[in-house]
């Protein structure tokens, strides 16, 4: 990584190991060690990605001969070409995208709606409803997928987009996030709109939702991430190749007869990871905020 060259710039010029009275001002030697360790740690963390990227432009023969090598002897884009021509990766990409987009939209709209009711309305059954949602917050997917498979089969939806989308169209976490945020919106704002004669739907759409940018961003990011990387359910619900999402496609290729096409598999991994990593780097501040808010509440 190029970081190591720049690192010393961060140190205070000529910082001598002064007596450490104030913990904020540390001797620069300690800070230098911290930097060196962090740079090494980041390099080690990202090493698998570099290796993957370099491996994706190698031939199977080269990877087999020198499995731990880095620099490709004879770089080739043949692996990528195979994905885009013979293996039609754009189809899997579109599948993943369709599923993710509808899942995100459903979560944003439906979780906001019920979140508003739970946060700002007084109604019969409210406590029971909220309790029920919270109790399912940590239900593992492995508990529901068998009956879900039977249900989807009975509905005739197996191997369709709705089968991939519907079970994830809402989430308890989304309800929780939206409700928590909306509770913080002052009642006076909503009462004022009510006195002005606005109906609840109008208040929701015109007064409440425009204020909900931060939790919507959090929910959108978490849902997109979850959907893009989701594996167990698409693995059982997508039965034929034209319905596979990217992870399902990659898993089946890597464990099937293509298991020895090393370069191809590495190129496939690059293609699966790249869109989400790009999105992450562009929106990193929001990603990290999402984790912090969803984790710490």
């Amino acid at each position, binding site marked *: 990584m190029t970081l190591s060259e720049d690192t010393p710039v961060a140190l205070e010029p000529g910082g001598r190991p002064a007596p450490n009275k104030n913990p904020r001002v540390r001797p620069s030697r300690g800070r230098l060690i911290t930097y060196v*360790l962090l740079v090494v740690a980041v390099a080690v963390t990202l090493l698998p990605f570099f290796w993957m990227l370099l491996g994706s432009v190698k031939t199977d023969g080269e990877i087999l001969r020198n499995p731990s090598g880095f620099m490709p002897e004879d770089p080739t884009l043949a692996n990528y070409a195979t994905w885009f021509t013979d293996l039609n990766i754009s189809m899997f990409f579109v599948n993943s995208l369709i599923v993710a987009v509808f899942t995100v939209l459903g979560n944003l709209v439906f979780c906001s709606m019920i979140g508003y*009711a739970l946060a700002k309305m007084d109604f019969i059954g409210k406590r029971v409803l909220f309790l029920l949602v919270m109790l399912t917050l940590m239900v593992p997917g492995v508990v529901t997928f068998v009956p879900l498979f039977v249900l989807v089969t009975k509905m005739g939806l197996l191997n369709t987009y709705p089968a991939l989308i519907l079970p994830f169209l809402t989430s308890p976490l989304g309800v929780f996030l939206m409700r928590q945020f909306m509770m913080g919106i002052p009642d006076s704002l909503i009462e004022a709109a009510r006195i002005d004669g606005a109906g609840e739907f109008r208040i929701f759409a015109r007064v409440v939702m425009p204020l909900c940018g931060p939790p919507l961003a959090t929910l959108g990011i978490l849902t997109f991430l979850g959907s893009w990387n989701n594996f167990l359910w698409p693995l059982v619900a997508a039965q034929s190749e034209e319905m596979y999402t990217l992870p399902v496609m990659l898993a089946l290729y890597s464990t099937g007869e293509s298991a020895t096409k090393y370069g191809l598999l590495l190129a496939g991994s690059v293609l*699966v990871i790249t869109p989400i990593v790009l999105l992450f780097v562009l929106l*990193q501040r929001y990603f990290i905020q999402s984790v912090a808010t969803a984790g*710490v509440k």
Partner: protein
Amino acid sequence: MAATTVPAGAVIGAGGKRVDPGVSRRRRQTMIAWLFALPFVLVFGVFMLFPLVSSFLMSFTDFTNRDVSTPLAVGFVGIDQYVDLFGNPQFIKSMVNTGYFVIVGIPLTMIVALTLAVALNSGIEKFRTVFRVGFYTPVVTSIVAVAVVWKFILQQDGLLNTVLSWVGISGPDWLNSTTWAMPALILMAVWRNMGTLMIIFLAGLQTIPEDVKEAAAIDGANAWQRFIRITLPLMRPTLLLGAVLLSVGYLQFFEEPYVMTKGGPLDATLSISYFTFNQFGFGKYGYASAASYVLFVVIALLSLVQFRALRSKD
């Protein structure tokens, strides 16, 4: 909330004939509120609650893939399948493996994440974002895709063993060894999940008031003492929260062995989720449901215990 908007006179002195406006207002609100909740309730009811209850009921029946067309005609077998599970060496093995993964994986991930969080919080300013992004990147990537890569890295003559050979260690054939396959999966899980906890711990560290640490420093406590005596106790709720989040995820691990080891060698990396998935694959839906409910109960109990612990210290 509703009462404040109702004119006071309207309620009292109405002679009891008219419906109390407060009550009718609440009825109206109830209707509107449920309309707001309706889309969620429908999806949640059909695709979450119904399968959750069905799974529980199925675990007491001999439901197989041949019963899909007539789900109500299955035979009731009581707790037979649960009894069978706990006598099934393969299921026991999967529970032991899952326990191994969780008990070793969680402390390791937490230690790594806390170390990174403390380092990033130690007053460095430059490149903080770069470091944070770097450590967090594995989290956003698909487990399947990184598992494909790690499968190569963990080969006998792969990258990891090459690095180990530099320091004179000759590494094992990780994924083909009954001893080393699980540590290899744990290593990968730590790598992939440390970023999440790092962010949560970083947020926790930033809530610790600086003056407490300064006071301790003035009293002569060194950095290590300040960390053990002040930072760690104040971080307790955050640490527990991290443990809860992580254990719920780790208890369900499935993708890693699915792509990297197929549960092998000799079931050495077969997890409860994977066992359930296999039973489903064999068409034994009832048996799979029973296995998944065992996992569910473990997760529920663990969360309960951890949240109790979390609350008792508040």
